[in-house]
């Protein structure tokens, strides 16, 4: 049923664009409302019919996936939630994917945040993902949320030598000395991998400069699209990998889906967003081409 709707609607888009292309050969302009209509359809259809474009992980994304995959089960992974609600639609899929992947692989997960909003978003991720999907994982044994501390990169400066100088308890007020997961953890240097998800200040850059570089700790991250270009220079030396915007998240999700049967039906907000993205980009590009065609043919006719 949905396939028929899908084929039908994509057919409409393709035929419509073709028709406009032919029209443009006579030098005629397309009215803006028609462009609006096409953009609306190209975003709505993939949403309604849940089209997911197959994504293949690029090396920069695969780098993170392989690192998480190849660490021996029980390794210690820290996920830092360095974002707020306004950025969440873009980067939340990344932290969700990291969390799922790490837990499924049997790693110990430490959640923290350099943003005040990160604390509640981390807690929300625990409620949304860990509790329903991994009921056998125990708070304080398999994962822990130590929350937010004020001080931006200053926090990193401290916890790179000692967590307990900054953090006495986790977010639920449980003494860190009494939880199993923190038994052999002294500082950030005891982590096997740090995953930072963010897109502002403080963010991945601060993690590179104040934690990964001085402590020689493997670091990877996910970043909002606006901030991504500024982070590429750190790859591959200081960053194992980087998820850039919603596309990076989608690539990571697709890699997880491919290799884990248990994730076949997991929610994939990143991939879901890719259908509209791809189609909308194609439509915009098509209109640029159409615009140039009508421009050239109109000019030729004038001659």
């Amino acid at each position, binding site marked *: 049923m949905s396939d028929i709707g899908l084929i039908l609607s994509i057919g409409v888009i393709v035929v419509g664009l073709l028709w406009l292309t032919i029209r443009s050969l006579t030098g005629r302009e397309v009215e803006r409302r028609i462009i*609006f209509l096409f953009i609306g359809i190209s*975003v709505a259809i993939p949403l309604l019919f849940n089209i997911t474009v197959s994504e293949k992980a690029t090396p920069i994304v695969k780098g993170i996936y392989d690192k998480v995959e190849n660490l021996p089960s029980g390794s210690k992974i820290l996920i830092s939630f360095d974002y707020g609600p306004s950025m969440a*639609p*873009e980067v939340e899929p990344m932290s969700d994917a990291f969390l799922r992947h790490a837990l499924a692989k049997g790693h110990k997960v430490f959640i923290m945040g350099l943003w005040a909003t990160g604390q509640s978003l981390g807690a929300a991720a625990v409620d949304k993902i860990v509790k329903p999907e991994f009921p056998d994982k125990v708070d304080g044994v398999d994962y822990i949320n130590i929350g937010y501390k004020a001080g931006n990169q200053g926090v990193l400066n401290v916890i790179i030598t000692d967590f307990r100088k900054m953090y006495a308890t986790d977010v639920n007020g449980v003494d860190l000395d009494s939880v199993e997961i923190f038994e052999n953890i002294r500082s950030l240097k005891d982590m096997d991998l740090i995953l930072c998800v963010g897109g502002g200040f403080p963010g991945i850059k601060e993690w590179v400069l104040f934690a990964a570089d001085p402590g020689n700790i493997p670091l990877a991250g996910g970043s909002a699209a606006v901030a991504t270009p500024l982070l590429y220079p750190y790859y591959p030396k200081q960053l194992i990998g980087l998820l850039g*915007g*919603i*596309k990076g998240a989608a690539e990571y999700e697709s890699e997880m889906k491919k290799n884990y049967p248990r994730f076949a039906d997991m929610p994939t907000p990143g991939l879901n967003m890719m259908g509209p993205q791809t189609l909308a980009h194609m439509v915009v590009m098509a209109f640029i081409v159409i615009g140039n065609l009508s421009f050239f043919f109109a000019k030729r006719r004038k001659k």
Partner: protein
Amino acid sequence: MDRSRRISLIIFAGIIILFILSWIIKSTTLLNVGTESLLSIRDAFFITFAAFLTLAIFSFLYKDNPYYKFAEHLFVGVSAAYWMCVGFWSTFVGNFIPKVSTTLSNFFEVPPKEFDIFYFIPLILGLMLLMRLSPKGGWLSRWSLAFIVGTTAGLNLIRYLRTDFITQVSNTFIPLLVDWNGIGPFFSDFSLSASGQFVMTLGNWVIFIGVFSGLIYFFFSKEHKGFFGHASRVGIWVLMITFGASFGYTVMGRVSLLVGRLTFLFKDWLGLIS
């Protein structure tokens, strides 16, 4: 009654019926989930109303129409009041009242702070600003404006000189030849994302030339002729490439916004997708 008027009345009636229908259906679905009856009716109203406003704004893409005008005017009024309330409660009650009057802070139930006579100055300047409303005292408001303009000009002069200007200039000093270790290692890595020496040197040259030709483009004292003309031409090329790239890159973010809005309509309102 002429024809167009009749059509618009029919549309209006249709929208009202659809609105009520959606309200009722939404209420029942919320009731089925187990929300308290009154609450679900209220929430259903608000969700339907929000959806109506969303569609009203989208209708602007077709053309200006009464529904867009309604949403626009409502939005202007409500948001202006919203910021007034935020300003009053957070700045005036939060920052100002505690420092000038214990009685008032008790009245507003904010913890009073140490009395500070200097806080009467902004009060006076603020009242002077309000003198604009009187036809005679308008000139008094210029004192407040002078205070604001003077302070910000001085503050920003320094701030921009320091952050925008000096920082950027000092960042421009980059090596034009990155760590020369002989021809072999220099050309070893052509990958644009990696930090091969050739690529980095190339990048630094592009930055160097781009910055200086860009600066020359913005030079006002000379006609763009001769060497100046060539350099400024390169400058505007670099600018245009940059603008095109930024434009293309932004499409992704903007489409995400539209996805968010359509998700609200399809999921929270219509329940078409899960």
